[in-house]
């Protein structure tokens, strides 16, 4: 379980490696909030290397999306596999987030 952050152009890209769950979601939250505080505005979270996400992981995504919007920023998600897509659909969170199929498409959409 780890989160790697890099900058692609103007976009802060976060890769979620492994699970996003109650045991580690604070780490993701803090990393993104640190970037937001530094003045970053565009965020992309890439799930291509993610296992499963629990409700507290979803909760952190909801909270980050609010905080980023409050600062006038934007959040995109990319590369949800079929199981993760189902999870977003079950919770209707697919209607709250802007979700792109691929990283490139997400990057272009800003």
């Amino acid at each position, binding site marked *: 379980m780890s989160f790697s952050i890099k900058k692609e152009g103007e976009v802060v890209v976060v890769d979620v490696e492994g*699970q996003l769950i109650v*045991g580690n979601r604070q780490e993701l939250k803090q990393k993104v909030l640190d970037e937001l505080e530094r003045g970053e505005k565009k965020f992309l979270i890439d799930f291509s290397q993610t296992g499963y*996400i629990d*409700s*507290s992981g979803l909760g952190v995504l*909801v*909270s980050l999306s609010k905080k980023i919007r409050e600062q006038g920023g934007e959040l995109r998600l990319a590369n949800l596999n079929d199981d993760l897509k189902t999870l977003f659909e079950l919770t209707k969170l697919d209607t*709250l987030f802007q979700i792109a199929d691929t990283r490139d498409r997400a990057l272009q959409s800003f």
Partner: protein
Amino acid sequence: MPDAVTDPREDDEVRIVELDIPSDVRLIENVVELIRHECEVMDFGRRQIMLNVPVALSEALSNAMLRGNRDDPEKHVHVRAEVDANRLVVEVGDEGTGFDLNERSEDPTTLDHLEREDGRGLFLMRQLMDRVERVDVPNGSVVRMTLHRA
């Protein structure tokens, strides 16, 4: 050391995993892996192994630790999973005073709930498992979830 022979699995085989651990959410991932592995051995479906089992189990475990045991590491969570060719029955017990499962049936997918951070745990357990029940036991509370192999 001899080679590990692959399980000579029989149709009436039942595999049981039992754990008793402190309330510490960082333990959840490994508990999930142990039980997920049992479902893999029993040929549960890919989606069940990748989504239903790990997510529902994580929810039950974190509720037991954070809600039931109020994140007190001196309070333990007891897990018992029984897996056979037909189904997984997993019980997650905590040392809390219990709660009324029927009263907790808010729908987190409504528009006014959607932006809330919490309140999706029981909903996901119900969506991802075939059955979710709660039983009171002496000194604690148990949530039992059942999933039929598919």
